């Protein structure tokens, strides 16, 4: 195995160890979305937007899980590591910056895939949800979602100054976004203004893509605009990160 590949595998393993060993993040990032699915799945039982409620919720909460894992979890973790000097210390080793960030991204993807599988199994076993109609499309949608929201996560990391505030700031964005984008239930009855806001949010479009592949069995490419919106948000986040990302603590 080449040196850079060995370093990458070593760092993905390290990131996984760090994630699962840190109980707070493992619970907040990994357990929270499936738990919300269990709760909401027990509340709704009719139809949502013409789909069986549990299917619509499953798709909505996979979307929320994506934003929560790749955006919120990633940003909070990286800000805490930066402010406590861990990032700076790692920069003092031969590990290349790009390898580190790629490993963080892949580790995030692993966590999200496991979380999605758990949510799916819960839905199938407990609530009689339907299986995805387009598996390859679902996988592509997952990759797009993690890529887009991780881009936003790296961007947010670069903008948030303090470790103490990171969790509050990030959740102030993620929870209302998930609410407006229809993660937690139907949005038809929302006031028009809120629907306008929802129309620019990346999660709205990601959930649309999930609906297309999972519930309707459409191709992943069925709605190119939705793909572009998610990519544009991720790209904007990466652009901010490109200019502002730092390894040194800001507040010391």
């Amino acid at each position, binding site marked *: 195995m080449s*040196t850079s590949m060995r*370093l990458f595998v*070593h*760092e993905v393993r*390290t990131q996984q*160890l*760090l994630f699962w*060993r*840190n*109980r707070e993040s493992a619970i907040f990032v990994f357990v929270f979305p499936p738990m919300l699915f269990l709760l909401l799945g027990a509340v709704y039982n009719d139809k949502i937007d013409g789909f069986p409620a549990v299917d619509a919720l499953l798709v909505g909460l996979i979307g929320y899980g994506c934003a929560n894992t790749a955006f919120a979890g990633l940003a909070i973790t990286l800000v805490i590591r930066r402010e*406590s*000097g*861990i990032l*700076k*210390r*790692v*920069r*003092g*080793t*031969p*590990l*290349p910056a790009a390898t580190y960030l790629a490993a963080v991204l892949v580790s995030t993807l692993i966590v999200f895939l496991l979380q999605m599988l758990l949510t799916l199994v819960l839905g199938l076993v407990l609530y009689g949800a339907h299986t995805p109609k387009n598996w390859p499309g679902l996988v592509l949608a997952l990759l797009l979602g993690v890529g887009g929201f991780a881009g936003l996560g790296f961007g947010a990391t670069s903008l948030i100054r303090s470790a103490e505030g990171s969790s509050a700031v990030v959740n102030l964005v993620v929870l209302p976004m998930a609410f407006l984008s229809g993660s937690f239930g139907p949005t038809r009855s929302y006031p028009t203004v809120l629907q306008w806001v929802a129309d620019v949010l990346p999660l709205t479009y990601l959930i649309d893509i999930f609906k297309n592949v999972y519930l309707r069995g459409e191709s992943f490419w069925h709605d190119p605009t939705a793909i572009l919106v998610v990519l544009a948000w991720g790209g904007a986040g990466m652009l901010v990160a490109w200019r502002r990302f730092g390894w*040194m603590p800001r507040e*010391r």
Partner: protein
Amino acid sequence: MRGISFAVQRGEVFGLLGPNGAGKTTTVEILEGYRSRDGGTVEVLGVDPWRGGSALRQRIGVVLQSSELPAALTVREVHRMFAGYYERPRDIDHVIELVGLAEKSAARVKTLSGGQKRRLDLGIALVGDPELVFLDEPTTGFDPSARRTAWELVRSLRELGKTILLTTHYLDEAQQLADRVAVIRDGKIVEQGSPADLIGVAPKVQIRYRDGEQDVVIETDEPTRVLAELTGTAVAEGRELDALEVVRPSLEDVYLDLVDGDDPA
């Protein structure tokens, strides 16, 4: 930084000594490759540290002044994590033993005491088997016995043939550990040399005694002659010189003289 120039020899322990805010950490962070510099020339192991990249970082070990390590990992896991970043790491258990954490090998980082955490910092700085080790205030906040232990460790590093650049604001630490010392103040080196050399630029030797109600202090470069005259006269007059003492300047006097003195600029 206004004028810093020094060269560290291979196998040497070099101390950067100065009060808080003098510019020690800034200097070290430029050498470690964390900061770019506005001007001047810097070479670390023959390479410009700002452009040295991974290849240079294979060869250096870093103990930062304040940094944390993943709290939920064990001592051994943190060593394994960092060992994985190097091409030819040292044996993890050997390093853990070297820094005196063998008994804490399976303990989580968050359960370690301040001194133990500092030893962990040192362990992961050594795990890549570096040629050059940067220690930025390695014992700040230690109790006296923990400091002694840390000093022993630095000495054992030198015996391993490592080159060490150490910053400290403790004079005794520099005196105990460093082969050569640079005293830094307001971003400028005000003196450098071996601890003995520095005492050489010292204020004069003081001869003190009490004459009736009055304390007399004589400063001189020729203590032997002055003392002989003084005691000769006193003996001849048949009187005792109360509280007679000869005080050699300590490195501390030199240091305080250097860092408290008038601005040399």
